[in-house]
């Protein structure tokens, strides 16, 4: 058995099995996230939400998926065909490959690489290409405007996100995601770095194009923004990619600030619960806040969005970075 696992074919099939073991639950999670979002939004707006297909509407995501599969993919005249089809695939696959480094429990990551944080940051900064290419290839004014907005927005918020990540890394002393979680054994980072936690969470909202920063879609001004022209599976891929990105950003928040798979207190009933359960609970909490924010806040105006990113978040995160470095140095807590 071990001989087989060490042979090239064995390594390949093992990697394939690992990827499937991660991606299949993830896609089911994505499906039920759309269901949960509609249910929560319904409850917050005194409606029922989906309740017809299956008990409590539990089969609704699959009914939607079936509908998407049946519909016809329409490529508009004048569109750049290859890029038009490529854009949703790019969005979806980028949302998937980032999961390779997420540790759900100690040693459970598919690839436990030394630069895990940078890898995630790099992949999330690539997400903008799916949107820009979609907007450009559609050959439509609305789609193009949405794409331009999203490009400016994602580049702006990445800057402050980067500084927040640097602050966390200062406290950890490693770029490995498992090390980041293990460094939070004594205290989860959202307590000492609370302002950074808030900034990071709001930046993830902007990075995933979620309300109140959903200007790239902006259905009241741009119809549906960058994916106006998309239908059927191409649309579904954008949709899945957006929700998978939400889960990804929530798990990044969990890993950086909420202690990953660690229980809140290392005492008897709490530390008996397996790590992945804690991890999923925390991710669900972040996702709930995502939906809660969507139900609560109106959309930002574009100039307000830019002002918040460049004139509020960037200076605060920069100053807090300097303060953190100073405190760590003076108190001698700098990890080696």
């Amino acid at each position: 058995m071990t001989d087989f696992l060490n042979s090239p074919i064995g390594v390949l099939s093992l990697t394939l099995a690992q990827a499937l073991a991660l991606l299949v639950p993830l896609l089911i999670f994505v499906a039920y996230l759309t269901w949960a979002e509609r249910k929560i939004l319904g409850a917050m707006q005194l409606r029922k939400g989906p309740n017809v297909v299956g008990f409590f509407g539990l089969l609704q995501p699959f009914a939607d998926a079936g509908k998407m599969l049946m519909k016809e993919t329409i490529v508009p005249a004048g569109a750049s065909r290859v890029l038009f089809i490529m854009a949703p695939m790019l969005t979806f696959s980028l949302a998937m490959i980032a999961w390779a480094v997420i540790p759900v429990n100690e040693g459970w990551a598919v690839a436990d690489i030394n630069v895990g944080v940078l890898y995630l940051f790099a992949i999330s900064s690539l997400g903008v290409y799916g949107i820009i290419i979609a907007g450009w290839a559609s050959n439509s004014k609305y789609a193009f405007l949405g794409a331009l907005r999203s490009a400016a927005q994602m580049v702006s918020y990445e800057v402050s996100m980067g500084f927040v990540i640097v602050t966390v890394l200062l406290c950890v002393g490693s770029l490995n995601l498992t090390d980041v979680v293990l460094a939070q054994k004594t205290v989860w980072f959202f307590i000492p770095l609370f302002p950074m936690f808030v900034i990071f969470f709001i930046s993830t909202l902007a990075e995933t194009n979620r309300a109140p920063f959903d200007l790239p879609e902006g259905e009241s001004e741009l119809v549906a923004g960058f994916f106006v022209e998309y239908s059927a599976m191409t649309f579904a891929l954008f949709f899945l990619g957006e929700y998978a990105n939400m889960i990804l950003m929530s798990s990044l928040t969990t890993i950086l600030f909420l202690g990953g798979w660690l229980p809140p207190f290392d005492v008897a009933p709490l530390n008996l619960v397996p790590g992945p359960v804690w991890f999923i609970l925390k991710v669900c909490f972040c996702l709930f806040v995502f939906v809660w924010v969507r139900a609560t806040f109106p959309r930002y105006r574009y100039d307000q969005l830019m002002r918040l990113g460049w004139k509020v978040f960037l200076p605060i995160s920069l100053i807090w970075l300097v303060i953190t470095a100073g405190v760590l140095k003076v108190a001698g807590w700098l990890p080696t």
Partner: protein
Amino acid sequence: MIAGLAFYAFAAVLIASAVMVVTSRNPVHSVLYLILAFFNAAALFLIAGAEFLAMILVIVYVGAVAVLFLFVVMMLDIDFVRLRQGFQRYAPIGAVIGGILFLELVFVLGAWQSSGQAPELRLNAMPADVQNTVAIGRVLYTDYVFLFQGAGLVLLVSMIGAIVLTHRDRVQSKRQNIEAQVTRRTQLDMAKVPVGASIGSLGILRPPVPEEKPKVIAHDDDHGHGHGGHH
């Protein structure tokens, strides 16, 4: 063997996409090929064991620089025919420059690979327990700290220069005073309406608007272009 195969695959795609950057008709396609080239360069770094450099290449060049590039190229109104006009005339100059760069690369790599003092020219192999990222940090922030800071200052100066150049001609640029907007008093007041009561029965309906509207006080300074609060 797998690493070798991967190297040749990535290198081939890198060169092909670099050629496409120069030859493709549509500038947007050129930028997209450039991004593909960056990616393959990052993959080559990864194969060489420089994982930090690979990730930084993707974050900085693909994630930020190329996005802005694409942004600008998409918005430009380019006449493709005029763009190609000088191609024949400038091709020899380009070829000469390319040739010089190629020769320089050959000299550098040749010296590095096969000169008598090759072992001394190469950097010392790092100890096995030190991560790539740590090793770069040790060198960059100790031996080369002043050069590093100097590079940062150059970037700062160019950034300030870009901002100054952009804003020099725009005295009339539209500004908003967010504080004035937020603290602006309107005639709107929040009222608590009990469930089931109609607004009319509470006596909180606004009185009919007089003909001459009182001026709102907390405008931002009067540029005559409105205060941006309405949309």
